[in-house]
């Protein structure tokens, strides 16, 4: 089985689906490399090289460079989706969503509902999320909770190259708007990725580690951190189950509840800020529907309620660390057991 990077897996997903379906087009800033200017064609392939090579194969009609105007081109993509194309539009940094949020949450998310089902909006918005690059407050956020909050949007957060290809092909074949969030520190991570196209259904969690003592739900770049902690605690005889929901909308509630029903303990690890985030959402879900299975309070391990620091030392403290994850696991294990009734 060939090993590919997260970046290659995403590029391959785009290329294979564009080969299969002529309606798929790629839109964004520098997706080719300065179309219309005097620069070299395909100079970049996107800011981190994901779309490199595509313009050579598919041409300028299907790989569309845009000016720096998110409101303009996200709106254009939403309209193109509603009128027969299947655009994959790149928002570059999710932090820029403020410039185009109306096109996403009031337009694309609501077209089908407000037009009585007469229109589908098969739009994919790809964006980079996350901290760790010293890119500072306006280029390092997660913000994924804002999208999961909106009815009509689907949200995917692949944690590895294999999931990235399968979820992106699924996203392109989905008739609803999908927000596809790629963690910027994962682009060079490798995994076994089949050469053939494949899909991973939305709303299907991956149980990355089986365990009995505590359930750790983790997303995106936090999955590998949780797995490293789980593997280290295994040597002490602590059995940790790591659940990667893969998509937060739809969310695989059943897998999370089933896992907590067996372990009785829940730790949620998410890089987003805690107020109104998906970590908080999952905690409420389990508190409400898994209350009687819990043997300890739920712990969320999240970023603090602050902007992402520019200082490297502070940024490292901002992102949930292995130490904090381990401390949370030990805390839920140490909590006094529920008294038998």
């Amino acid at each position, binding site marked *: 089985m060939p090993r590919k990077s997260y970046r290659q897996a995403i590029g391959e997903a785009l290329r294979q689906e564009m080969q299969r379906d002529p309606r798929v087009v790629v839109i964004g800033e520098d997706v080719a490399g300065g179309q219309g200017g005097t620069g070299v064609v395909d100079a970049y392939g996107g800011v981190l090289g994901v779309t490199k090579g595509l313009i050579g194969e598919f041409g300028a009609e299907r790989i569309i460079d845009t000016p720096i105007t998110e409101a303009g081109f996200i709106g254009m993509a939403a309209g193109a989706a509603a009128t027969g194309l299947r655009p994959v539009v790149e928002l570059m940094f999710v932090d820029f969503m403020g410039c185009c949020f109306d096109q996403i949450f009031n337009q694309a998310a609501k077209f089908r509902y407000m037009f009585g089902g007469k229109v589908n909006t098969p739009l994919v918005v790809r964006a980079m999320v996350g901290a760790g690059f010293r890119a500072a407050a306006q280029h390092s956020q997660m913000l994924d909770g804002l999208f999961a909050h909106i009815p009509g949007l689907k949200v995917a957060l692949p944690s590895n190259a294999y999931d990235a290809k*399968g979820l992106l092909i699924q996203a392109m074949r989905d008739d609803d708007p999908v927000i596809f969030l790629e963690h910027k520190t994962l682009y060079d991570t490798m995994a076994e990725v089949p050469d053939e*196209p494949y*899909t991973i*259904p939305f709303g299907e969690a*991956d149980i990355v580690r089986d365990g009995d003592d505590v359930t750790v739900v983790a997303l995106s770049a936090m999955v590998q951190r949780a797995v490293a902690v789980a593997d280290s605690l295994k040597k002490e005889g602590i059995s940790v189950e790591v659940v990667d929901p893969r998509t937060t909308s739809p969310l695989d509630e059943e897998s999370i509840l089933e896992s907590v029903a067996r372990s009785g303990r829940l730790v949620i690890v998410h890089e987003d800020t805690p107020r109104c985030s998906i970590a908080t959402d999952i905690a409420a879900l389990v508190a409400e529907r898994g209350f009687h299975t819990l043997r300890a309070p739920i712990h969320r391990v999240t970023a603090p309620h602050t902007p992402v620091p520019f200082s490297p030392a502070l940024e490292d403290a901002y992102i949930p660390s292995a130490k904090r994850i381990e401390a949370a696991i030990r805390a839920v294990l140490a909590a006094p057991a529920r008294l038998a009734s």
Partner: protein
Amino acid sequence: MAIYGVTVPKWGLSMEEGKIVHWHVGAGAAVRPGDPLVDIETSKITNTLEAAQAGVIRRILADLEDVRACGALIAVLDDAGASENEIDSFIERAPQEAALARAETAAAASEPQFVELDRIRLRYLSMGEGKTPVVLLHGFGGDLNNWLFNQPVLAADRRVISIDLPGHGGSGKSVGGGTVDEIAGIMAEAITSLGLTRLHLVGHSLGGAVALALAATRLHDNIASLALIAPVGLGQQVNRNFVTGFIEARKRRELQKVLELLFANPALVTPDMADDVLRFKRLDGAEDALRKIAEANFSEDGLAVLLSLSRDLHSPATVIWGLADKVVPAPPDDEIRATYERLPGVGHMPHMEAAAVVNRLLASHFAGNE
């Protein structure tokens, strides 16, 4: 007089290391070729390594739960009372020789290739050279990796080719109507395309039905011998729960439960094994192919068609079956008109569960029919 090293084998394309989970022998034990030495666990499955030489175990170099790379030295045996110093020197030389062995294995290790036919592309793995070649056909939902404990061993003295059936593994996923007859047509073309004019044919489960069809019709004159491992097509019902469960299972744990039906010992099904199957099912066209094949062949009518093929059997045939097979139950002795080896305590995957026994049976069947 010689000192021999027992090293971690390389089972399958993706194995890089193994964990020692059980020693059958200790220092001082006398062993003969074929005696079980140690059980080694990989993320995919566990298997028993057997002694390749006769002698006495002089040192055990890995403890339970130790993880060692393929090629690493885990025990030393000798057949002529070497001194402790000589054993020590042997062990000291071992890292260099392990590195050499790894390089040799890497060089010799085959990578899968493709054969392009008009209507489909098939993936195959070819190893070895020498006597009459062997073709291995896996079963429903499987792929060429199912032969990981058999192919390298059988390839010691001949070319052994494992091929992914249409709809499976890395082969194209379009299976037409999915009947065994159509699949046999494609496999006959592939075998011809690979330049094989005389071969031993081995088939497991659905692959057994394909092998039967090939022996009865298209490759009638090319087959030196036929070996069927728990084949579909000799009259038995196929466990519907297994087939439906295999196709419909969405989650890894659910699929794990279904896969446990394949083995007499359910503990052989690892999460990684189930994950591999799940990843296969997600490939474009895979599930569709499985459904078509199941519908075309595992119904009452489908099985009746397959049974009619076995009546025309001419090749020297041997049939191997696990008595604890829950997927295609082993028929009684008098129903099989061929050499019939029934293995107690073995499920639907004898070539994996009792690899050494099956390898010996196959090797002697080939030797008797070159």
